[in-house]
C-alpha cells in the first residue's frame, strides 16, 4: 500500500538553488525535528520541480536521524485506495489507527482532494490526530491549499497552519548545476557548452530538462560521437525562439477574490461566509462523520446518505441518533445469534439498519430454531428410581444438585459398575432439571457426544455444535470413560466444562470407576471430574432389590407373590440389571408354562430344579443330556448373558 522511499531521492542528490532553498531548508528542519517545527509542512510547485524528490528526501533524512521512526510515504491516490480497501474490508478503524501511529507521514499530490469530500474529512481528521500526537505531516501539491478546488475551508486552514512553501522554477545556474549533476550520475560526458545550451533553453521544469538530457545521452550513445553545442541545439529544437517557451511555468497567480468597492459589503460577505461555513460544514461534518464511522464498521449507511440529498434536512441529529440506535440493536442481535448459530450471524441483514425488521425475524428464527442438544430420556423418571443404602449417597447428592443446580456439587460424578442404575439416575436428574424455566438440558451418552462432534467436524459446523452445547443450562454425559483416547472431544469437553462451570451450570457424569482410575482420560479432565463430588453406587442391597422387583412385578400383574419377591431379593445380585435378568427368566418360564409366578417356579428356574409338572414330553434327549425347553429357547440370549453366577452356568451346561 505504501510506496517505498526511492533511495535516489535524498537531500544529497537535490540541487539547491534560489528557487527551492526555502523549501529545502524547511524540509531539512522538519526531518531533523519531526513534529516540532512547521507542522504540517506544505510544499507546492508546478510539475517536475522536485516535490516528490524533496518529500522523499525528508523521509530519508528523518530515518537517518532517528532510525526508529515510523515513516510512511504515499501519494494521495494510494491513501484513498487504501482507505477504500479498508472500508470495504470493514477495517476503517484499523486503517485510522495505522496512520495515526505514523511518526512522519509524507503525502504526495494532495491536489487530487478536489471533489472528494469524504477524503477531505478523513485527511482533516488524520491531520488533527497527527498534530495532536506531535507527529510530523508533510504534504505536496501542485498548488497552494486555497487554490485546490472545492477544498473544505477547515482543511485549508489546517493545511496552511504550518508552513506553506513553494518551489519555483530553477534559474539558469541551477539548471546548469542540475544538468551537470545528472550527466555525472549517468556517466555521460559532454563537450563544453552543451549543457549550458540545454540549460539556456528557458525550461521551467526539471523533468523536461531531464528529458532533454536523456535525448542527448541517447544520441551520443547511438552515434558513438560526442555532440557539440550546435548539434545539441538542433537536436532539441532550440533556437527558434519561443517555440515552447511560454509553455513552461505558466502558473497564474490568481490572488484572493478582489474585494468589492464597499468595504462594508466585503465584511458582510466574510461574516456570512464564516457563519455559513460553520453552519453547513458542521451539519455535513456530523453526517459525514457518522457515515464514515458506521461504514468503517461495515454497516450500510443509506439512511444517512439520503439525508444529504433531501431538500430540507430536518432533525439531522435525531436521524443520526435513531440510526445509531438501530445499529446498536443490530449488534445485540448479531451477538445473540452468533452464540446460537455462528453461521447465521454472518448474514448481511445484521449490517443493514434499514433491514432491522428482517434481522429481528432472523434472530427470532434462530432463537426458536436452534436445535437443542439431546435431552434426557423420559423412560427414567426419578420416582421410579429405587433407593437403598447402596446408592443413597448418590441419590442424596442428586437431590442436592436438583435443589441448587450448578452450585453445590459441580460436577457430580456417579461411579459404579455396569447395571447399577447410573444411567437411570443421570437421566432422572436430567428430567428434573429440564423442568426448570428456560432450562436446556443436554443429556446423552458420551458416545453420542463424540459422534456428534465428528459429524460436526465433517459438516464444517463445529461452531454451531459448540454453540449448541454452550447454550445448555446443564450437561449430563453418560459413560464418560468412553471419551478415552478421543483427543479432540476431550479438548472440546474441557473448554465446554470450564465455560459451563464458570456460569454455574450443572455438570453430571457417570463412570465405571473413580476418574483417576479411568484409562485414556487426560489428566486435566480427570482432575476436573474428581474436583466435584464423586458418588459411588455399590451392589444393590436388599431394599433396592425389593423395590425394583416390586415395581417390575407390579407392571406384570397386580399382586406380586411376596414369597417370590423375598426369594429373589435374597439371592445375591451384582447389579440391578442382573436382578432384572433373573426376574425375566422366571417370568419367561412362567409364560411358557402358562403358570403363575411363584417362588417355587423361580427356584426351579434359577437353581436348576425341575419344576414339578414340567411338560417332559416337550423335551427331548440327545446323548443323555436333557435340554430343558422351559423358556430356554425363548430367551436364549438372556440366558447366555444373564447367568448371574457360575453355579447356574454349570447346571445349565451339564443339564
Amino acid at each position: 500500500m505504501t510506496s517505498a522511499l526511492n533511495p535516489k531521492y535524498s537531500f544529497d542528490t537535490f540541487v539547491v538553488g534560489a528557487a527551492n532553498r526555502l523549501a529545502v531548508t524547511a524540509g531539512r528542519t522538519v526531518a531533523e525535528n519531526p513534529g516540532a517545527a512547521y507542522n504540517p509542512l506544505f510544499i507546492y510547485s508546478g510539475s517536475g520541480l522536485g516535490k516528490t524528490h524533496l518529500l522523499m528526501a525528508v523521509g530519508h533524512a528523518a530515518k537517518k536521524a532517528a532510525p526508529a521512526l515510523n515513516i510512511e510515504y504515499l501519494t494521495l491516490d494510494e491513501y484513498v485506495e487504501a482507505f477504500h480497501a479498508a472500508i470495504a474490508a470493514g477495517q476503517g478503524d484499523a486503517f485510522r489507527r495505522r496512520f495515526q501511529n505514523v511518526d512522519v507521514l509524507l503525502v504526495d499530490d494532495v491536489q487530487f482532494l478536489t471533489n472528494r469530500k469524504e477524503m477531505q474529512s478523513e485527511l482533516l481528521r488524520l491531520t488533527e490526530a497527527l498534530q495532536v500526537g506531535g507527529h510530523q505531516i508533510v504534504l505536496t501539491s501542485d498548488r497552494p491549499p486555497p487554490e485546490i478546488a472545492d477544498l473544505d475551508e477547515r482543511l485549508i486552514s489546517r493545511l496552511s497552519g504550518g508552513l506553506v512553501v513553494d518551489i519555483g522554477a530553477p534559474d539558469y545556474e541551477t539548471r546548469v548545476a542540475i544538468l551537470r549533476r545528472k550527466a555525472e550520475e549517468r556517466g555521460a560526458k559532454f563537450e563544453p557548452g552543451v549543457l549550458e545550451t540545454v540549460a539556456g533553453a528557458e525550461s521551467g521544469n526539471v523533468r523536461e530538462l531531464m528529458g532533454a538530457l536523456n535525448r542527448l545521452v541517447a544520441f551520443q550513445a547511438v552515434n558513438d560521437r560526442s555532440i557539440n553545442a550546435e548539434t545539441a541545439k538542433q537536436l532539441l529544437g532550440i533556437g527558434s525562439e519561443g517555440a515552447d517557451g511560454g509553455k513552461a511555468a505558466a502558473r497564474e497567480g490568481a490572488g484572493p477574490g478582489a474585494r468589492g468597492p464597499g468595504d462594508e459589503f466585503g465584511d458582510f460577505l466574510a461574516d456570512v461566509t464564516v457563519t455559513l461555513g460553520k453552519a453547513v460544514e458542521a451539519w455535513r461534518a456530523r453526517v459525514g462523520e457518522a457515515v464514515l464511522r458506521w461504514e468503517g464498521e461495515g454497516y450500510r449507511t443509506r439512511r444517512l446518505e439520503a439525508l444529504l440529498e433531501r431538500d430540507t434536512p430536518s432533525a439531522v441529529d435525531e436521524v443520526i441518533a435513531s440510526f445509531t440506535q438501530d445499529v446498536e440493536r443490530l449488534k445485540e442481535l448479531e451477538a445473540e445469534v452468533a452464540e446460537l448459530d455462528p453461521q447465521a450471524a454472518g448474514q448481511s441483514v445484521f449490517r443493514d439498519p434499514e433491514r432491522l425488521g428482517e434481522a429481528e425475524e432472523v434472530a427470532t428464527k434462530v432463537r426458536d430454531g436452534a436445535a437443542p442438544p439431546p435431552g434426557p430420556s423420559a423412560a427414567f423418571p426419578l420416582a421410579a428410581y429405587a433407593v437403598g443404602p447402596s446408592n443413597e449417597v448418590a441419590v442424596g447428592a442428586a437431590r442436592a444438585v436438583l435443589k441448587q443446580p450448578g452450585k453445590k456439587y459441580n460436577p457430580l460424578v456417579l461411579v459404579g459398575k455396569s447395571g447399577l442404575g447410573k444411567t437411570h439416575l443421570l437421566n432422572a436428574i436430567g428430567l428434573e432439571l429440564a423442568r426448570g424455566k428456560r432450562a436446556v438440558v443436554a443429556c446423552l451418552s458420551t458416545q453420542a457426544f463424540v459422534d456428534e462432534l465428528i459429524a460436526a467436524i465433517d459438516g464444517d459446523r463445529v461452531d454451531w455444535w459448540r454453540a449448541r452445547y454452550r447454550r445448555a443450562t446443564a450437561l449430563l454425559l453418560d459413560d464418560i470413560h468412553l471419551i478415552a483416547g478421543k483427543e479432540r472431544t476431550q479438548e472440546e469437553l474441557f473448554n465446554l466444562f470450564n465455560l459451563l462451570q464458570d456460569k454455574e451450570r450443572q455438570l453430571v457424569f457417570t463412570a465405571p470407576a473413580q476418574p483417576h482410575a479411568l484409562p485414556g482420560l487426560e489428566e486435566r479432565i480427570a482432575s476436573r471430574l474428581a474436583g466435584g463430588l464423586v458418588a459411588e453406587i455399590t451392589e444393590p442391597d436388599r431394599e433396592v432389590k425389593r423395590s425394583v422387583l416390586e415395581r417390575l412385578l407390579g407392571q406384570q400383574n397386580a399382586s406380586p407373590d411376596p414369597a417370590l419377591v423375598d426369594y429373589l431379593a435374597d439371592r445375591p445380585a451384582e447389579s440391578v440389571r442382573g436382578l432384572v435378568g433373573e426376574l425375566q427368566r422366571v417370568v419367561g418360564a412362567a409364560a411358557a408354562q402358562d403358570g403363575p409366578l411363584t417362588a417355587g417356579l423361580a427356584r426351579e428356574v434359577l437353581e436348576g430344579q425341575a419344576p414339578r409338572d414340567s411338560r417332559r414330553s416337550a423335551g427331548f434327549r440327545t446323548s443323555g443330556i436333557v435340554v430343558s425347553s422351559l423358556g430356554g429357547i425363548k430367551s436364549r440370549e438372556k440366558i447366555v448373558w444373564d447367568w448371574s453366577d457360575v453355579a447356574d452356568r454349570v447346571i445349565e451346561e451339564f443339564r
Partner: protein
Amino acid sequence: MSLVNFTTREITCKIVYYGPGRSGKTSNLHYIYGRVPDSRRGRLVSLATQTDRTLFFDFLPIDLGQISGFSTRFQLYTVPGQVYYNATRRLVLQGADGVVFVGDSQARQLDENLESLQNLQSNLLEHGVDIRTIPLVLQYNKQDLPRELILSAADLDDALNFRGVPSFSADALHGKGVFETLKGISELVLKKLAAGTAA
C-alpha cells in the same frame, strides 16, 4: 420555501424588513444597494408613491456567490408600513426566513412601534409561525436625531425588546448600523440552518 437546497446546492434567505411607516426600512435597502458591487446585486425593485412612500414593497436580491459550495442568495424585502396595507405585509411576510424590525426611535412614535410589533406577531401567526421561533432582530433607527426627540437604545430595549433578541442602533440614511443589522439577522438565519431544521 426551502432555505437550503442540498440537491441544487443553493441557499436562499428571505429577510423581511418590518416596521411602522416612515421608520426607515427602505433607507436600509437603499444603503445596502449602494454598497453591493454591481455584479452581486439584482435590480432594486421599489414601488413607491409620488411622495416616496412604499406602496407595495421593496425587493433587493443579493448574490453572495459560492460559499462552502453553496450558491448563496439573500432576498431583502420591505413591507409598506402604513396600517392599511396589512394584506400586502402579510403576503410579503410569507416564507420569510428572518425579520428585521426597524423601529422609529422618536419618542412620539413609540406607540406606532408597539402596534407594528404586535401586527408582526399576528401576521406571522397567520402563516403559522411563532414569533419566538423565527430569527428576529430589532433596529432602532434615527438615532442621529437630537437627543430630546428620541428614546435611547436602552429605553427602546426596555419598551420593545421584551424577547431579548439582538438589537442595533442605526442611522439608516447615513448607513450607520445597517450592515451590522444585516449581519445580525444573517447570523441568526444561518445558525438556525446549523441546527438542521428548516423553519
